[in-house]
């Protein structure tokens, strides 16, 4: 299996000059293609910081993040924008869709940034929204969709750019049980059928129960790294 993400002694220290807080402490992990990983831990354990570091949204104080053989730790901000655009998909806790655009336009938007042709963009957006079960909501704006539907649009948007992996930050936190299960079904299916690498930061037991790998962080360090290959 090909390694998609590799972290080496990854460390992030906040307020380093006053009262240093080690949010992430010498974390060395590998994530291989097609993995469905849940990063868990109590509040303040460093889950979000770790996700931000491997997503190129934040820079480590020490250590390296290597994505597909590219070290992004020291990459310039302008290059990071482009790198994220081409390699990483994001799903956020509160959906973060563009409220003035329709579902189809929200999904197309990321491909627009990638300068895809209009025809290709439209085709892929429709395909992705069909995959997440929203083929009848193509022209609905976020305000006309339920929370679960908005999060499914966000998943379609994250996958539309064909990223190397998808980072999901507590994607089910704002959803009711039915919508959460629905979303997890879709993401599990895409993970298996399309071999998409998924990394979740979560507290949600429903997500943890589906993940084939569960990494527990405590005080910024890896406390447990469990694999559940039998889970489907």
């Amino acid at each position, binding site marked *: 299996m090909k390694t998609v993400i590799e972290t080496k002694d990854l460390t992030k220290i906040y307020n380093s000059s006053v009262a240093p807080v080690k949010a992430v402490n010498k974390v060395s992990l590998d994530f291989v293609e097609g993995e469905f990983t849940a990063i868990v831990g109590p509040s303040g354990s460093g889950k*979000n910081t770790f996700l*931000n570091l491997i*997503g190129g*949204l*934040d820079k480590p104080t020490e250590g390296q993040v290597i994505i597909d053989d590219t070290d992004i730790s020291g990459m310039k901000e*302008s290059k990071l*924008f*482009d790198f*994220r*655009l*081409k390699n990483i998909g*994001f799903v*956020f806790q*509160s959906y*973060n869709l*563009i*409220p*003035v*655009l329709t579902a189809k*336009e929200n999904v*197309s*938007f*990321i491909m*627009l*940034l*990638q300068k895809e042709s209009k025809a290709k963009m439209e085709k892929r957006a429709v395909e992705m929204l069909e995959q997440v079960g929203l083929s009848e909501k193509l022209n609905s704006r976020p305000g006309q969709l339920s929370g679960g539907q908005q999060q499914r649009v966000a998943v379609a*948007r994250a996958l539309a750019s064909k990223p190397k992996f998808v980072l999901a*930050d507590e994607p089910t936190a704002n959803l009711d049980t039915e919508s959460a299960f629905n979303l997890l079904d879709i993401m599990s299916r895409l993970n298996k059928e399309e071999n998409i690498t998924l990394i979740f930061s979560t507290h949600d037991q429903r997500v943890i129960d589906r993940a084939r790998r569960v990494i527990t962080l405590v005080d910024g360090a890896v406390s447990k790294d469990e694999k559940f290959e039998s889970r489907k």
Partner: protein
Amino acid sequence: MRMLLKISWLNLWRNRQRSIVMIIAVMVGLWGGIFAASFMFGLLDQRFKSSIEQQVSHLQIHHPEFLKDYNVKYYIERFDELYKNLSEDDDVIAFSGRTKVNGMLRTATLTTGVNIMGINPEMEANTTSLNKNIVEGDYPDDSFRNPVLIGKSLADKVKAQIGSRIVLTFQDSERELAAASFRVSGIYQTAATGWDEMHVFVLQDELNELLGYEKIVNEVGILTDDHEKSDAFAERYKDRYPELEIRTWSEISPELAYMQEMASMMYVIILTIILMALAFGLLNTMLMAVIERIKELGMLMAIGMNKKRIFIMILLETTFLTLTGAFLGMIVGYFSVAFLGKNGIDLTAVGAESLSEYGFDPIIYPVLEPYVFVVITILVILTAVFTSIFPALKALRLKPAEAVQAE
């Protein structure tokens, strides 16, 4: 770019009430600027036209010494040749040769100093609007001897009426005092009461005879088809008549040229002040728009929308907001100025006398030059760019990791 344009336009309407208030503010501000500018242009345009038509003409030709000494003996010697050349010149609409002398006007009750203008009525009527400014009596002709046309303010001052006899005294060619009795044939009134009080018009042939000359001309007033041609025209005639003093309207009345330059400058200053005031409103609106959307901007940065595009998006939003208001302001401004430009704004009740003393007509017809809209559009876009910088910088300083977590 199309998607950015679409997002920016739609973002404008996310807080409909706030955007509409700002658009109305821009609209009213620009309408005010357009109206103030057109009012000022109208005022000065009338002043310019009345000065040119009633007093200055586009060019004047004199014997150079006449301007220093104001003595009738300094007349234009080659007037017949000049007359022929001006008559054949395509740029000349009309011209009038005048005999001018300073003198005293005396009635039974009062004596006052005046400029006596000897005119050929037909040539003068073609060159100036003197014949159109008659408010009582008739424009002078040959129907009786020694008719005189006086200004209304002078008539009021010396208590003269149509048919009143007045005596004009002046120095003749031998520097001897000459006096003659004239009968008021008409009373004229222009927008400039000071001018009216100082100038009386008599028939040129009669004045020349009284002065002891057969036919002299001290001044030629020329009306060309375009006042912009005056400088070139003057240069051309200076080559032909080096012995004469040929002056353009801007040399004769530098205040007219100065007022025109000032008007253009004042208009830009007025608009700049209005737009600067509006810029703070726009800045506030755009800052609010950015602060309300920190999470969304963080998401856009996270998924890979680079800073240049974020900047362009905010710039476009500000430009749309400003241009929408500006466009409406220009439409309202255009129609209100078109209406008032046709019907005029009557200021008689609020100071007609004061305006007349400064040579302004109490009815103002606002004028709007097409270039005003070009200047407004440029200034509005500059304002939009200027006001979008701070909100855009605020957006660009966001850290995507923190912004996506913002409450």
